[in-house]
């Protein structure tokens, strides 16, 4: 899942090539198909626990991870399937994790909220809102300390901004950034709600990007439904952070068209019309229209991409379904490092 990037002679992004856009479209369609398969798996009782899907937000991670360079780190909360897929984890392993199988990416130990693929740069999905933010800042310091030019892509929700851990970590990042020791790109996925609470109902100062002013961190906003706009920000900002070692914050305006989690049945907190309005700006729909308008793809190509994605995900589901549960002995592995014989008896 990797796309060639183009840069103008001056280093800025130029109009994205058709081929690249088609490739990004394909990724987004795959993510959507994956998430829909998850919803189905949950309804069938094959996926347990909590399930948070990324439907409506695909352009965000797709756009930013397009600028990911080997060695960089990605960290996010529990809405993490897309990040894993985009970093190149086999959809089979991701789905197997959700199905609680031993072939899953964390051996069935974490489930949907805790996807890790450290080799590919995915430093995890975390379940406590805001809890992962300081870790991402720590990664950034460590990567500079270790003499690399890698950066952290730190994803967080609008709801997480009200959490104390965010404010403490942002303050640290601003401080360490003064010495070029905090190459951390804060990517605020403002999908308008934290569960059932809208941004207006959670903070009196709703300009989330501007919150970073308080910590001396430069910031801006981007339309998260327009993949080209996201790509432009991503390319420019990841390089800036890499070069300067200073943190930067980008508020990405997007929308979760799916319910918050699989158990959010009633959605009393928003009107159907609002969802419909946003659906008109669905990132996949917008890009599809653009591809068609610019003759970058025809209906036939679109259909082909869609059915290939379906097939890919169907294979992942089949693999997950047919895989074995973890060995019972796995219960006691991975509790302590350097203690393979741990049995729980002290």
């Amino acid at each position: 899942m990797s796309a060639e990037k183009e840069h103008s002679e001056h280093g800025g992004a130029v109009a994205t090539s058709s081929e690249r856009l088609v490739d990004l479209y394909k990724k987004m369609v795959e993510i959507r198909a994956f998430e829909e398969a998850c919803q189905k798996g949950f309804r069938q009782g094959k996926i347990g626990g909590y399930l948070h899907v990324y439907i409506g937000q695909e352009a965000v991670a797709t756009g930013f991870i397009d600028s990911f360079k080997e060695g960089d780190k990605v960290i996010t909360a529990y809405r993490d399937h897309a990040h894993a897929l985009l970093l190149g984890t086999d959809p089979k392993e991701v789905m197997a994790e959700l199905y609680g199988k031993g072939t899953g990416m964390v051996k069935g130990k974490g489930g949907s909220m805790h996807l890790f693929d450290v080799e590919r740069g995915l430093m995890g999905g975390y379940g406590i809102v805001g809890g992962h933010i300081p870790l991402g800042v720590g990664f950034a310091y460590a990567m500079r300390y270790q003499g690399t030019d890698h950066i952290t892509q730190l994803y967080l929700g609008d709801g997480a901004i009200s959490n104390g851990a965010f404010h403490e970590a942002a303050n640290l990042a601003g401080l360490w950034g003064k010495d070029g020791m905090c190459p951390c790109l804060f990517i605020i996925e403002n999908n308008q709600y934290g569960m059932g609470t809208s941004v207006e109902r959670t903070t009196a100062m709703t300009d989330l990007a501007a919150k970073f002013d308080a910590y001396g961190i430069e910031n801006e906003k981007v339309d998260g439904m327009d993949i080209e706009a996201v790509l432009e920000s991503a390319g420019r900002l990841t390089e800036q952070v890499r070069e300067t070692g200073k943190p930067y914050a980008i508020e990405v305006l997007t929308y979760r068209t799916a319910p918050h989690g699989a158990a959010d049945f009633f959605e009393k907190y928003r009107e159907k019309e609002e969802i419909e309005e946003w659906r008109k700006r669905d990132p996949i729909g917008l890009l599809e229209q653009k591809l068609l308008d610019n003759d970058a793809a025809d209906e036939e190509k679109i259909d082909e991409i869609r059915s290939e994605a379906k097939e890919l995900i169907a294979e992942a589901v089949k693999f997950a379904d047919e895989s074995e549960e973890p060995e019972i002995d796995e219960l006691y592995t991975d509790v302590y490092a350097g203690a393979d014989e741990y049995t729980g008896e002290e």
Partner: protein
Amino acid sequence: MAETKTYREALREGMVHEMDQDESVVLMGEDIGVYGGTHLITDGLIDEYGPKRVIDTPISEGGFTGAAIGMAMLGMKPVVEMMTWNFSFLASDQIIQNAAKVRYFSGGQVEVPLVIRGPNGGGVQLSAQHTHSLENLYGHFPGLKVVSPVTPNDVKGMMITAIRDPNPVIFLEAGALYGTKGEVEEGDNAVEFGKARVAREGSDVTLIAYGRQVNLCLRAANTLEEEDGVQAEVIDLRSIRPFDEDTLVRSVEKTHRAVTVQEQWRWFGVASEVAAIIQEKAFDSLDAPVQRVSGAEVPAPYARNLELEAFPSEKQVTNAARRALYIEEK
């Protein structure tokens, strides 16, 4: 008069009962109002009581719990919902450093009539960060009261008592049982703290638990009767702090054997405390070492088979009882 109600309805009824009697009672928490409450405990209450009494908060556990402590110090009676107790770690500094102690270190000048409530415990594949039973953690700190009701009647009656109590109460609900039904007394059915309940009478072995594990013990007791002809007594502690030593000791004096069951990890858990109390207060009555049944010593796994292995099972309880009775395990 009693009516059959769900645990959820009974819990809500307890809160509403006190809200109607006492204007100083307010509810606070994430998504308890407009959203209706993640577990629908408070559904509709914002329409009835308005947003000044049913306060939706941002995802700021430390901030809003601390603010609730401040309100309580000035005479309000906040009932704070932790969406789940797993998120209380973010508020634990406020709970432990302020709520539990401010009365003491102010030389008794203030009170903290505060209730913090929410679902506790695991069992539905929520994995490591979302699966905790925190009664031993909060039970450790003098100044806090900790209760864990399992029946609909108790959840209502203990909520009424919790709200009236002038101290901070950690109210641990059996989250997995919100939908279960039972007889609930009408009106004021306040249940005194520090009184255990004999959930099943028996003469051969005492099974001691609280919260959801009480039901596990009741099932185990039935199996022991059917398969082994053993009459197990089941004690529901209900309240971890204050603790009812008398009921416990009386039972062990009768049965001479005890099994103590908890969902949390064995090390430094409530079951250990129970075992210690039994050997201190009923040593001469014991015919066998006190058996402990607890969760596996690992962070909670996601996969269903691992999770089942990690939690106390009926089989573990029956076999622990058999060990205490010196009969063959099955």
